């Protein structure tokens, strides 16, 4: 763990605010199998929260509960509450498209639409009947995602011609453009080369001043470098994913309270 001692952990300004997302007694089933059991977790506003844990423990499932992407998986069932700004996103009067607009998601493999760079960003606005200046919003989103300088001369080129890292930043820009307040990132850098991955991390730190970010990663260096808070998830004896420990990233990595957390971050398994 020598890298841990040397690593400067992100500093943490005071954050007295109410958490933006509160997960309460969350259980998730796939068919008859309980995959996440009794998760309680507060996601602080304008912070980066990392979710770490061995593969298959339910990290991705958890993050997909936060904008109801699990709705798309047949026979997935969610029980419990996810309160976003105090309102349960699973209550029946909630418009799921509105939830997904405000809580954006970036996936493991960059997935731009096979259309122009411009159209990738404009589409999310068009489908909501956006009447303002599209060019402006597109430029702002691309600047926020630190992509503008690289693509400003080829906005109408197909997005699939961009490099993997650029595609991933385009996906972030796309989410920002529709007005996401929370960004959920499911291993956003695992398909990228180290340089591109670092660029994404840098971007996330930059964005965390104005946005709330939740990132799933199995790369512990990445979690330590980028996040303010870390949640460690692992399965119990019945292969049900449980939240083992949650707290400030520096505490989790330097002074874990649970033996399992310590074993995991010191690389004894997983």
């Amino acid at each position, binding site marked *: 763990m020598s890298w841990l001692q040397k690593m400067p952990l992100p500093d943490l300004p005071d954050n007295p605010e109410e958490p933006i997302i509160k997960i309460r007694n969350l259980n998730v089933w796939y068919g008859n199998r309980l995959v996440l059991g009794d998760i309680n977790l507060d996601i602080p506003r304008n912070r980066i929260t990392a979710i770490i844990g061995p593969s298959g423990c339910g990290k991705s499932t958890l993050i997909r509960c936060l904008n109801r992407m699990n709705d798309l998986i047949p026979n997935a069932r969610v029980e419990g509450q996810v309160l976003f700004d105090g309102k349960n996103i699973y209550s029946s009067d909630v418009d799921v498209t509105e939830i997904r607009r405000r809580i954006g998601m970036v996936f493991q493999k960059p*997935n731009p639409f096979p259309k122009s760079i411009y159209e990738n960003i404009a589409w999310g606005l068009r489908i909501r009947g956006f009447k303002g200046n599209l060019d402006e919003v597109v430029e702002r989103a691309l600047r926020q995602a630190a992509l503008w300088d690289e693509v400003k001369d080829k906005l109408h080129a197909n997005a699939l011609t961009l490099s993997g890292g650029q595609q991933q930043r385009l996906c972030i820009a796309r989410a920002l453009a*529709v007005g996401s307040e929370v960004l959920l990132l499911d291993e956003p850098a695992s398909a990228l080369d180290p340089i591109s991955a670092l660029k994404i991390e840098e971007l996330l730190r930059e964005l965390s001043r104005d946005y709330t970010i939740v990132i799933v990663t199995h790369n512990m260096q990445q979690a330590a470098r980028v996040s303010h808070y870390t949640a460690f998830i692992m399965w119990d004896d019945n292969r049900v994913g449980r939240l083992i420990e949650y707290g400030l990233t520096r505490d989790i990595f330097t002074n874990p309270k649970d033996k399992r957390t310590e074993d995991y971050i010191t690389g004894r398994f997983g």
Partner: protein
Amino acid sequence: MKERWLERLFKALTFISTIIGLLVLVILLIDVLKDGLPRLSWKFITSFPSRNPDEAGILPALVGSAMLLILTALFAFPIGVAAGIYLEEYASDNLFTRLIEINIANLAGIPSIIYGLLGLEIFVRALRGITGGRSIFSGALTMSLLVLPIIIVSSREAIRAVPRSIREAGYALGATKWQVVRDQILPVAMPGILTGTILALSRAIGETAPLITIGALAYIAFLPPLSLKALQSPFTVLPIQIFNWVSRPQEAFHANAAAAIIVLLVLLLSMNAAAIYLRNRFQVRFE
């Protein structure tokens, strides 16, 4: 030594098997070209059929085939694509949808004459008031039923081939299912859907049995009027014209049939070429 000999024999056998089909087709083509080419002329294409083989032409049959094709596409394409979208994107996996799927798969294998009988009963007789009986309208509706299963199946395959990640990208931006289908899935799937549709239609253009069943005539000495009434007019198509000429005793009519076959083949091959072009030109390659 014996092994090597067997090896060679086997290779030769498989090769012969491969070219048998091709050879037969080539012989057929040469035969048709030899008989038909001298007869093929602009006048042949623009003349009405006649008792005199030298004056007879294929104009009504060509127009009939074209109209039938266009109408069939108009009816079958939207319904087929919509059914494909429903089955791939909306339907949940239950007994009912599985039953529908099995049904559609089986429909694609039903002999075409059964469709002809169905068309005769429903479109020609029951719906006579709308279709005008033995009309091009009835013919196109019958053909639509015939090609519908093929269009549904190829639409489903094309829609299913669109990566899941594209759907997720759309939903994650807060799009509704319809918006994702309309703006992201259909554009990517469209080349595949069109390819399947064209291939289905090129099957329809060569069909004879169902149209004979519903009563397409071989002798049409006029073109349909340029109005909606055209839908209700009697009609003929190329395969029926060919069938009619082939069954005449006079040698000269056989030459006419050969020439009409050339026209039909050119039509078919250009449709298939268009399908291949569409597939190669507009297919989106991910990665």
